[in-house]
Structures are given as C-alpha cells and as structure tokens.
C-alpha cells in the first residue's frame, strides 16, 4: 500500500550521496545537506502545518471571543442551568420551568425515539420493496421501481412537509377521524394504535415464559437428536412451538393480568390509551421511513444481485428448495454485502431526523434552534448539537461494525 510522499524515505534517509551508495569506501560516508534529508523534511513540514493550524484556530477563537463580547454574551455553558421556558409537548417528563439542560435531554430523547423507530420501519419497508423489485411478477416489480425512482429523486424535506401539511392536515378533525375497526385511529391529531400494557403479573408471567422457552429448547434438541439418529424428519418447529405456547397459556391463566392489549379510544378531543403518535411525530416518521426505504430497497436489491449466480445454481444442484436456497445460500452472502451501505443509510436517517424542524417536532434540531433564538449562545449550542449527533453517528457505526464483524466471521469460520 502506498504510504504517502517519501515512502522511499527511510531507505534513502541515511544521508548517503548516491555516488557513495554505489560506492567504494565506507569511510568516505558524508552527510548530505540537511534540507535534502527526507526524514528531516517530513518532520519540518508537519511542524509547519501544525503551527499554521494552531495559529488559525487561535485567530478564529480570538475573533469569536471578541465578537461574543461585543454582543454582550460569553462562551461559558452556564446558561444551560437557567430556566428554559421552551414549551415541549412530547417525550419524557418536562415542564418549561426546568433548565435548558433538561430541555436538551428531552430533545435528544425525542431524536433517539424517531430515529430508532424510523430505522426499524425503514428496514422492513425497504426489505419488502427491494425483494419486490426482483419479483417475477411484472406488476409488483414495476410498482416497486416507480416507488424507488420517484421517492429517491425528490428532496426528503419536501416529502416530510408534504406528508405533514399536505396529507395529515387534510385529514378530518378528531371527531370525524378515520377509525380502523374501532381499535386504531387516524386524524389531524395524529394516530393511536393498540399497544401491549404491562400489568402487575408481568414479572411472574415472564418466569413462565422463560420456563416455556427452556422446555421448547429441550424439545428442539431432542427432535434434532432423533433426526440425526434415525434420519426421520425432525419437524422441530412443529414440536417446540406448541410446547412454548402451551406453557405460556397455562402461565397466563394462572397468573392473570400479565400483559393486555391497551386499545385506544377517542375521548372528546383527545385520544386515550394505546400508543399515541402526535401529528408531528407521524409526519416526520412517515417522511423519513418512506424516503430511506427507497434507498434501502436499492441496497437490498443490489446485494442480492451481487451474490454470484453460481452460488444459487450450486444450491439448486444440491437439491435445496428455493426457500432453502434463499435462506442458507443467497441471503447470508447478500447480508454481508449489504451491511456497510445499510450503516450509512441508518446514519442518514438519523441525521435527516433534523428536518423535523420543518414540522416542529421537538427533537434536537428544532429545540436547539429555539435555544439559539432564546439564549443567544449560538456557538455553544451548535457545538453541543454537533457533538451529540457525532456521538449518535459513532454509536450506530460501532454497532454496525460489530454486526459486520459477526456476519463476516460466520462465513470465514468454515
């Protein structure tokens, strides 16, 4: 691998003149002029560069300090402790009398919420569309293609604003809102869907579940053994799943009130119960998921196509069924190809969540721009925001790197 200017440096850096290298006598070794010495030049060059960088940063800092003093503020982070007064309606407990720091924490939590849910949903939708693009069914294939071409080539910000102002605002008010069989609702106020509610007996039922899992695992192991010993079909899923379900059901009957489905209802002008999504959250989430899914679909499609044709044909030759070919041969290899680009899509989704500022969903970016307007400390706030996003990006990259290592090793372990 190329190692930069002077990669031949160490070899020529003895200060030997060329003639002497070819040369006659070791005693005549003479030092070359110091400015011809590559090693010396490298050190000096870097020193000069470092000095220039430090000097530039010092200048910028002095400008900043002067400018900040001129407008009558400072560069400290003390303002974070003062009362914020920013109204935030969503997320973890908060009231405007609390500090800027608390408002910031709430905003970060909201960003994590929208990015986390968004990544999962975008992945699912992208997988479906990506597979649809490879479908032998012409209609399905074409529709997936149109979806990708339209969504991918339009700005995500326009899409988010469209879903929020164009679609959600055009929905009926909550009184006449759409209702899906009386269990899920959609209106200008946002959406409400049924959600599991954890009851008092949840802990005890959890133990039952655990026991059921262990038992099902044992049955699984036993069927595998039977299959290995006698060669009869193992039917592991058919055997273990009923065991698990039976244990869980018995446990549920004995414990009572472990988990129940909390169905939302319309109460006046509000939703009550269930999992409620505000209009702003729905808008940004739908926008991000639909946009990112188009890119993920292309990654899925590309990765499946990138798996060598011979692999599938070999699997076929071994007599695997189409589902088995996909499950054991194509997808594991496709997944390995897909991990790095998926990582960058997840990062993009997280960073694009900053566009929530356009629909006033109170996440990091929109809260921080309010903070800049109110507290008047743009430098500290933008630095804080950048550091936060950087931390999130690095976390996602770290997780994906771990995933990458796992899926790569699986193949190489043999």
């Amino acid at each position, binding site marked *: *691998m*190329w*190692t*930069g*200017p*002077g990669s031949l440096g160490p070899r020529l850096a003895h200060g030997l003149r060329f003639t002497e290298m070819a040369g006659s006598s070791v005693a005549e070794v003479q030092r070359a002029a110091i400015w011809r010495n590559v090693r010396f030049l*490298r050190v000096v*060059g*870097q*020193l000069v*560069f*470092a000095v220039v*960088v430090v000097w530039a940063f010092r*200048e*910028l800092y002095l*400008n*900043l300090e002067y*400018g*900040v003093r001129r407008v009558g503020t400072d560069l400290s982070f003390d303002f974070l402790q003062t009362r914020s007064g920013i109204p935030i309606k969503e997320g973890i407990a908060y009231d405007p009398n609390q500090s800027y720091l608390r408002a910031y924490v709430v905003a970060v939590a909201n960003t994590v919420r929208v990015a986390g849910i968004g990544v999962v949903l975008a992945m699912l939708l992208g997988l479906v569309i990506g597979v649809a693009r490879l479908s*032998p*069914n*012409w*209609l*399905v294939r074409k*529709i997936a293609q149109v979806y990708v*071409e*339209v969504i*991918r*080539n*339009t*700005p995500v*910000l*326009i899409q988010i*604003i*469209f879903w929020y*102002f*164009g679609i959600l605002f*055009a929905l009926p008010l909550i009184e006449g809102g759409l209702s899906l069989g009386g269990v899920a609702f959609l209106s200008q106020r946002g959406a409400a869907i049924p959600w599991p509610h954890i009851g008092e007996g949840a802990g005890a039922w959890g133990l039952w579940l655990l026991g059921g899992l262990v038992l099902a695992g044992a049955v699984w192991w036993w069927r595998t053994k039977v299959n290995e010993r006698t060669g009869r079909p193992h039917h592991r899923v058919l055997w273990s799943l009923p065991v698990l379900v039976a244990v869980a059901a018995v446990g549920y009957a004995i414990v009572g009130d472990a988990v129940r489905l909390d169905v939302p209802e319309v109460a006046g002008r509000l939703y009550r119960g269930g999992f409620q999504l505000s209009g702003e959250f729905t808008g940004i989430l739908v926008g991000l998921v639909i946009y990112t899914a188009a890119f993920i679909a292309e990654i899925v499609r590309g990765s499946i196509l990138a798996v060598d*044709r011979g692999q599938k*044909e070999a699997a*076929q*030759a071994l007599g695997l*069924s*189409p589902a088995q070919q996909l499950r054991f041969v194509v997808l594991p290899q496709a997944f390995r190809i897909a991990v790095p680009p998926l990582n960058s899509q997840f990062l993009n989704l997280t*960073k*694009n969540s*900053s*566009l929530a*500022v*356009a629909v006033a969903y109170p996440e990091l*970016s929109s809260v*921080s*721009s309010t903070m800049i307007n109110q507290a008047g400390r*743009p430098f500290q706030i*933008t630095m804080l*925001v*950048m550091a936060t*996003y*950087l931390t999130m*990006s690095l976390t996602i990259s770290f997780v994906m790197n771990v995933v990458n290592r796992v899926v790569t090793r699986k193949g190489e372990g043999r």
Partner: protein
Amino acid sequence: MMDRVPTELERVAAMLKEEPVVEFAPRREPVAPSGWIRQNLFSGWFSGILTILVGAVVGYLGFGLLKWAFLTADWTVIKANLRLYMVGRFPPDELWRVWACVYLVTALAGLSWGVTRKRLAWTVRKAATRGALAVLALASLAYLLDGVRIWVLVGAVVVIYAAAVMAGRLGARRLHIPVIVGWVLAFPLIILLLRGFGGVPPERWGGFLLNVVVAVVGIVLSFPIGIVLALGRRSSLPVIRVSCIGIIEFVRGAPLYTWLLFGLFVLPFLLPAGVVLPNIVRAMIVVTVFSSAYVAEIVRGGLQGVHLGQYEAARAIGLSTTKMMAFIVLPQALRSTIPAMISHFISLFKDTSLLAVIGFIEALRIARIAPQGQFSGDLRETLIFAGLLFWMVAFAMSRWSQRLERRLGVGER
C-alpha cells in the same frame, strides 16, 4: 414451485434435452399477450393473488390521484407564481441573464448526453413512452406558459438541447475532454452572467435558480477540496492524516441543517471584525465544506480500489509522488467513483431545499408561501410542483450516471 423463473442452467439443460444443437443466443420468440400475462402476472397461485391485491390497491390509489389531479386540484396557483418558482425576486429586466445560463447549461447537458451515447435505439415501447412523456410535457407547458415570447424562449431550449445531443453524438470521440472543461468553466461563467456587468447581487437570486446555483457551487468547489482531503487522509504524515480524518469525520458527523445554523449564526463571529459576508455566501461556504467531506470519503474508496501494483509500477518507472498520483492513481481512482460521486451530487442538489428552513426564498419556500392569500392555502399542488422540479433534474442526472457507468465499464473490472 411453479412461480419461479427458470435459471440459465435449467434453460440450457432443457434446450440440450430437446435440441442437441447449442445456440449461443437463443432467439426470443414473440409472446402472445395472453401468454405474456400468464408468465408475468399469473405464473402461480401466489403471483396471481399478489397481482390481484396489488392491482386493486394501486388502481384505487391511482384513480383517486387522477381524480384529484384533474378535478379537485387547483393548479392556477402554479401558473400565477411560475416566475417566483423559477427565479424568486430576480429583477424582471435582468432575466436575460438567467436565460443565458439556461442555454449554457442546456447545451452542456445535451453534449454530455450525446457523447455518452452510442446510437439511437428506438424500440416501439421506448418510442411510445417518450411520445407520451412529450405530449404530457407539452400539455403542462401549454397550461403554464402565456405569451409568444416565453414560447420562443422555451422552444430555444429544446432546439439547443437537440442540437447539442446531435453534436455530441457526432463528435463523441473528440468531445469528452471539452465537455468536462465546459462543465468546470460553467461555474464561473454562470456566476459572471448573473453577477457581472452590473448584474444582480446574490441576495436577489431566488427560486429554483438559487437551488441550482448553490448546488453547482457546492459541486464544483467541493470536488478539488474533497480530493485534497482524501489524499491527506491517506498521507503517511501523521499530523496531516489526523487533521484530515478529524475534519472529515467532524463534518460528516452532524446533519447539514446544523451546519447551516452554524454558518448563519456562528460563522459571522469567526470572521475577522469588519468582514461581512452575505447570508447566501455563507450558506454556499457551508454547503461546499459539507460536501467536501463526503467527496473525500468517496475518493478514499476509489483510492483503496486502485491496485497496489499500479503504485509500484509508477514508482518503478521513476515517477515522483505528485506525478504518480496525478497520472496513474487518481485517474483510475476517480473513474471508479463516478456512480457514487454522481449520487452524492444528486443528494447535494436535493439538500439545497434545506435553504428554505433557514429563510432563503428558494423553490420549496415559494411552494410554502405561494398558496397563501388569494389561493386555497392548500400546499399539495405547490409542493408537488416543487418536488417535480427537483425530480426532473435528479432523475436526469441518475439516468446519465447509469449510462456513463455502462459506457466506462465501471464495475466490470
């Protein structure tokens, strides 16, 4: 399994069974419509159900959409605000400058399309699609445009484009380098046309023009900066390497919106006292720096793809580091990055819509203000039109990229 396309192997096997003569390129028998439908829509029970379900949903949605577009929607708001959409508050007397830029870019786009294309390949299906698109475009233009003057101006765009495509195709061999040089020169020329000779200050640029100009500035300037950053990142000098990694990762770590806030609120403080840059110039600086970091990562990928032997060969024939990079490594590295680079430029172009959020009067912003007042206040028509503007440019760029990719054989080596 019935709903499965036979693979190459099966086809060959089947052919061998029936016909001992191996054809290298089996001729495709024309399929009757009924056979086509069976093969592509109802090849098995799963495929059949899928076709019916998807067809029903798409039919319902498509019908609703068409009904809305032709009966409910009020497109007069677009017609009334067309100039705002395109150029914002650009002085009407100076519009010839914009038209000159449009013609320049049209000619370049036509040439680029022409030189990457081998021959006309008109099939019946392609001709039908293109004809339908042309009719649709003409109908929309007929609705949107008023007056003979504008028709002549728009007609000139079409004529210039067609002429450039032809010229490009005829001179395909000789025109590659001139076209690239032309695109590089287009940036200063556009700025000169808009700004020079007592022109219009950047504060008055607006609408879609602003999106395009900011994108062009970002693309043209970030390209060399990105290459320098990428080379710096691969340098053996630790100080330079670490600085470049720091810059690239820090810039990429935060979203563009945060960087635009930085440019708007923090950058003025960092400049020496007395230096005041217009808002739009600061936004351009931010966009350029932001894009450079991404370009750097793309170029780094390309550099890593260059075979080690190429470096060694360059060394062996005694090239200096500069010459090795300029004549051996970078040409190969950049060639392999073309698809990624163009898709980055497309996304940069789309991201210029973020300017709307920080108060610039560009296309998306117009889409949000236009319906207020005498119109219904419904944003759907205006947003769709703004989206369409972006879509046309982005889609054309992505198609051109695919064509270039095929032509250069990227990914085949």
